[in-house]
């Protein structure tokens, strides 16, 4: 493998909503992060630290107050081509008036040289990747939560992204389905040569999936630490989670996320 290429870059990103009262901190204060081609990076931090805001800025859905975000060296403030965001609330992101197949085809219809019929045909290929070819003619609301998120994943893939941004995508499904979706995302990440940035509050999930983890501080929010997981791939839902390195990382991150306020609270 050649030297890895810088793909996404957050440079001194600062985000404040409105004007700040004295003693109030900006949501994001000087966040710098570089993500390389085909990396899997997780962003983790205490709740309310601005993780989702950071992802919105990465998606081009929200401009930073200062600093910039670049894709392949080009700054952007609108969603750039090739960067697709997958939302936590899949049920609100899928179009309930379209069938599963039409939801996926929707993002391909405007591609050059793609007819509506061809987009429908193509959508089956993407649904097959997420194991939902049989549900093509159903409506999203006829499917379970896990299946709906699979449709959303298929739709995101159909847009042929280089970068996939995941905003706590598995937090609304049950624990077993979450394992399935994590494995599916890793498989697709590998097969489609994607670069993935995941925002999560689930330490185990971040360690299990990522190459690197950006640990955010509480407000004012910065990248407190960048952790290289160094866990071997392909990862295994059972054995990877039993490795000493996995437990060590988990311990380290939990210590960061839970201390000191929560520990103190237990004494009260």
């Amino acid at each position, binding site marked *: 493998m050649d030297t890895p290429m810088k793909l996404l870059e957050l440079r001194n990103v600062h985000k404040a909503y409105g004007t700040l009262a004295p003693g109030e901190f900006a949501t994001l204060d000087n966040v710098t992060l570089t993500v390389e081609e085909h990396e899997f990076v997780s962003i983790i931090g205490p709740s309310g630290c601005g993780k989702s805001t950071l992802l*919105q800025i990465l*998606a*081009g*859905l929200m401009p930073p107050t200062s600093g910039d975000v670049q894709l392949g060296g080009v700054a952007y403030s*609108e*969603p750039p*081509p090739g*960067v*697709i*965001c997958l*939302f936590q*609330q899949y*049920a*609100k*992101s899928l*179009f*309930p*008036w379209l069938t599963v197949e039409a939801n996926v085809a*929707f*993002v391909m219809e*405007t591609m050059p040289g793609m007819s509506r019929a061809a987009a429908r045909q193509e959508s089956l290929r993407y649904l097959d990747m997420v194991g939902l070819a049989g549900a093509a003619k159903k*409506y999203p*609301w*006829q499917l379970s939560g896990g299946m709906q998120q699979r449709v959303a994943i298929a739709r995101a893939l159909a*847009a042929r992204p280089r970068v996939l941004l995941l905003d706590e995508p598995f937090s609304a499904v049950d624990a077993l389905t979450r394992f399935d979706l994590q494995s599916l995302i890793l498989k697709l990440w590998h097969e489609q040569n994607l670069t993935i940035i995941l925002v999560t509050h689930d330490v185990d999930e971040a360690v299990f999936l990522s190459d690197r983890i950006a640990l955010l501080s509480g407000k004012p929010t910065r990248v407190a630490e960048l952790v290289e997981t160094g866990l071997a791939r392909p990862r295994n839902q059972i054995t990877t989670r039993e490795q000493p390195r996995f437990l060590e990382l988990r311990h380290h991150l939990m210590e960061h996320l839970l201390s000191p306020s929560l520990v103190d609270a237990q004494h009260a």
Partner: protein
Amino acid sequence: MLERLGDRLVGIVWLPLAVGIWQLAISVGKVNPALLPPPGSVFLTLHELVVSGDVVAPVTETLGMLLASYATACIAAIALGLCMGCNQAIYRLFEPLVELMRPVPKSALLPPLFLFLGVGWPAMFTVVTLGAFFPVLINTIQGVRGIDTTLIDTARTFRCSARRTVLRVILPATLPAIFTGMRVSLGLGMVLIVLAEMLGGEGGLGFVLLDMQRSFRVVDMYAWLVVLAAVGLGLSAGFTCLEKLLLPWRSHT
């Protein structure tokens, strides 16, 4: 299925009961049959109206006028509502005018409309269109504003053009709210068309109804009233069917 049919039949019990009370009131001499003839004679007249085909022309005229103005109102209100909902500048431009016009009882506009447009279909068309316009407009605007930001962000992350976002994302997402407004408008439109026909019509159901009353053909008047009720019921049922057909997701989200 049988149970659901049973549930609905319970409500229909009122129909024979009402007719029974009606008949009873006349039989015991509590009601003057000159004002309220017995149900039997009304239904007989109704039967004649239907068999002879006399019912067709007024129903067609009323329905035609109603549907033409209703469709015009809906299309205009949805278009303006989408613009006002999506664009703050357009909203600020039209909002005062809408707030000024909305509370005016549209029936009160008939006399001046008759002055300007003459006593005839243009004035009737205008009043029904105006009446049906506002509920759809208000619901469309509120529907657009109530759209979850995730849906808009979805359109943005897939780089949909403004036109595609409005027509393929915002419009369908607003349809449930639009239909709520359209249901209100259909009822209002029905009231206004009958009133307009009474005041300026030459053959619709409202005209015939008042004409029968004025010429003391009381039995016919009640028969036409039943026709009018049936038309209203049919429109409402048709609307419900259309809603189920176009918005199958409505009850699921």
